[in-house]
């Protein structure tokens, strides 16, 4: 609440100095969804600020990442700023197929998700980051419960990712343990990192973890869609999933009615574009340097005035 209130204040203050606002189609607030990871909060707040500059009213609504599609279909919610190719594709395709939800294109950020290890593990397993080294170091990555197999901490089951299949297809001597949430996943990483203990886990970017902890992604055979669908392709002739995870864009989506109700806002949201480095720096500022989201957002706004003015005026 405080954040929204503050964001509103910041908006008002900025408004007094620079007035770019034109008359807008509807004064009704455009509802943007907030989820529970910092990057998404930042993207959404940036978008919200830009829309405010253009004269639109904006409301932020907390909603679950997947469950929000129900609201986007009915028009309860209007814009979702981060749907990841890697985790949200299925739900997004299902929703856009109904015709009630529209894909507004890429945000410009690329999602990376892959097996990751901290840099100190390279001493124990010099063959890394090549995936072929994994089997030689299975012992080094093992715990009492999994020994002699290595332990790989996967993402929550709901994120998909096909790690169980990958382990089988690439004949890795690893056991996949699924964390239940994002928080649990990084709690284990933090714990292991403090002790310099072995750990191999799912890490994604843009996120604060790759900025805070030194480490690398394992290099698997490059992803291709045939590798996932056609067993005969790839290293293992009998099985699919014998390659790394796809990397892909992070998408913006909206309620299909947005285009008619706020045509100007629709164009601005489509034009919105930001890259991984910018986002990574902002996430780091918020999560590691304890800066406030609204401060980070307003700094970006003042440093990139040309860019967002361009989105509005095009």
């Amino acid at each position, binding site marked *: 609440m*405080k954040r929204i209130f503050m964001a509103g204040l910041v908006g008002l203050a900025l408004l007094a100095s620079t007035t770019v606002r034109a008359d807008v189609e509807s004064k009704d607030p455009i509802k943007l969804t907030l989820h529970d990871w910092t990057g998404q909060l930042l993207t959404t707040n940036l978008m919200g600020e830009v829309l405010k500059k253009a004269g639109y*009213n904006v409301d932020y609504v*907390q909603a679950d990442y*997947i469950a929000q599609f129900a609201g986007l279909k009915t028009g309860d919610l209007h814009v979702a700023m981060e749907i990841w190719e890697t985790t949200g594709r299925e739900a997004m395709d299902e929703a856009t197929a109904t015709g009630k939800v529209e894909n507004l294109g890429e945000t410009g950020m690329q999602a990376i998700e892959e097996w990751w290890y901290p840099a100190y593990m390279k001493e124990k397993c010099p063959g890394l980051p090549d995936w072929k080294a994994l089997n030689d170091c299975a012992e080094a990555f093992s715990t*009492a419960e999994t020994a002699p197999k290595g332990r790989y901490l996967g993402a929550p*089951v*709901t994120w998909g990712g096909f790690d169980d299949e990958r382990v089988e297809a690439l004949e890795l001597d690893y056991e996949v343990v699924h964390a239940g949430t994002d*928080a649990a996943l990084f709690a*284990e990483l*933090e714990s292991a990192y403090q002790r310099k203990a072995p750990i191999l886990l799912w890490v994604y970017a843009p996120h604060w973890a790759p900025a805070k902890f030194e480490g690398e992604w394992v290099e698997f055979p490059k992803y291709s869609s045939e590798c996932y669908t056609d067993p005969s392709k790839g290293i293992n002739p009998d099985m699919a999933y014998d390659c790394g995870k796809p990397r892909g864009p992070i998408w913006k989506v909206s309620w299909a009615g947005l285009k008619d109700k706020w045509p100007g806002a629709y164009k601005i949201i489509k034009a919105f574009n930001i890259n991984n480095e910018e986002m990574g720096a902002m996430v780091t500022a918020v999560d590691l340097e304890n800066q406030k989201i609204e401060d980070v957002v307003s700094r970006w706004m003042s440093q990139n005035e040309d860019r967002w003015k361009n989105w509005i005026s095009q």
Partner: protein
Amino acid sequence: MTKLAQQLAQSRNFWFWTTLLLVSWVLSTYGRDLAKAVDAKWLIKFPAAWRIPMKGEISAAMSWLVEDAHFGLFTVTEATRSITWLLEQPYQLVLSLFASGFYQGVGQDAVLVFPALSWVFVIILVMAIGHYAKDWWLSSLVGIAFLYLAVFGQWDSSMVTLASIAIAVPIGVWGGILLGIAAYKWWIVELALRPLLDLMQTIPVFAYLVPILFLFGFGPVSALVATIIYAMPPMVRITTLALKSVPTELKEFSLMAGCTPRQTLWKVLIPSAKPTLMVGVNQVIMLSLNMVIIASMIGAGGLGYDVLASLRRLDIGGGLEAGVAIVVLAIALDRVSQAFALQRSPDRPLYAGNSTTLRIMNYPRTLIVLLSGGAIFAIGSFVPQMQTFPEAYELTTGAIWEDVIRTINVNFFDQLEAIKTTLLSVFLVPVKRFLGGIPWIWGLLAVSLIGWRVGGWKVCLLAFLLTAFIIVNGLWAKAMTTVYLCGISVLIACVIGIPVGILSALNSRVDRIVSGIIDTLQTLPSFVYLIPVVMLFRVGDFSAMIAVVLYAIAPAVRYAAQGVRSINPQLIEAGIVSGCTPFQLLRRIRVPLALPEILLGLNQTIMLALSMLVITALVGTRDLGQEVYIALTKADTGRGLVAGLAIAFIAILADRFVAAGANRAKQRYGYES
């Protein structure tokens, strides 16, 4: 019963349980090979072809309800959306009053008309309420509690949470009272309500969040509805119970005095049941606060959101402070509502203002509150510190907690790991294997047999039907994982909790410490300690078990203490006179006599353990809780409800079995027959 018959019954009992256990063990261990030998795999794995696709049908029914169903003039969705609108008005009002302030206009054109209540004024207000409810002690306790919220920077979020509590609790209470009255008046309502209430209390909230979102839209109202559904059942039960226990003489007297039935109900029965009703109010407040975290996942914001967001950043201190703010709110509201419950109605009627002493006593306090309100509002316009607590003076303990966890983690991890590995290999894994290996067909038979043994054919039939539901939905394996995780946790909770409870009943100093810890454990959102537990014990069953034990231990302690305390002191004295040592007193008198209460506590422990399952799904267990959680994130109504029902059925069966056991214990010791 003659002694011989008693012995016979006991030995029969012994043989029943031993045989059951042995057969289960043999089938669990060799069942797989056996089935392979006779080439009948369906004995082990329930054939997919026999499954009844209930989840698909429920999902289909749900989308029909949302998209097509109507009552002639308007659709179901329109009806629920108008309820949303109706609930949203008072909520917005309270929210503006406590947190956001009143604005004129929309969005950027909005102008602040009237600010939210100042923190100083809210503290004065709650202190006045505390004083009105009881005395200066309560007043200062409540004052300190709210001061904590301001000093630790939790004020804004707390007020958002308080606003939703302020709407959810009255609706829960009044809805509960009305339903309770209906159940008291018409037996058919009571009959219909009982299973419904059982389900409302045992189906995990996650299971019905998705349909609620569909019907009531995104936002705080859906969270309110979920909170009310979760928090109302105890109020209904307590209302019916309270009305039933009003002495019949009182009712007859009021009818003789010429009251209409309506007058009898509202002027005589309800006021005289007030102390018991206030217990219900207290329960509604506590359960509403329990829902804060889950409600924040679907848009309620407030403290719950702060807890989740901090822990996502692994800011353990931040999560703990927000969690403690919930505890502090709970304690303040709990103590005040209990003080109101203990107020004796004749001396201080709640509504009537006609007694002269009351008027004199009441006025100065109200006056002070009003005057200070005006003064603060006036000063607040010039001095912003009065309006919002100055950020520079806010405290945080964040870094300390982080260091504590780090120190434990770096220095003691190996020792902890050793303990964990031992416990896992000698206890958890064997039990998991045993339960997981039981073939479904024998499971069905065994559960029915237990039902028949403890409660006759009725319980047997119930056991058969509920277990069959789980099996035909293809959830047998997950159900057994659930039973394993809950069973182990309940066992550990009892092994620790019951002795602690007995000890705290015998020693008042221990009691004070223990009850403080238990209050905190019950209201502190479990997510707060789940993350440090994961850091120390890694993702898996063991971490989940610790979280479940911490949450479910409270009733084990409380009921054991209550049982020991409520023993007739004459019996203890008789024991002392006949020369019992303290240990003998405990073993021969206290524990056996407290057994029915202890079993009730066991029952509650099981319920709480099951309700924690959905939370432990967040650390990666593979049970019914995970199934519900997956369904939630995939917005799959049918899947979530079916898994939720499966959990509810396990809870109902455990409840019936333990209740039957408690009855027997009562009879055996001639406690109440």
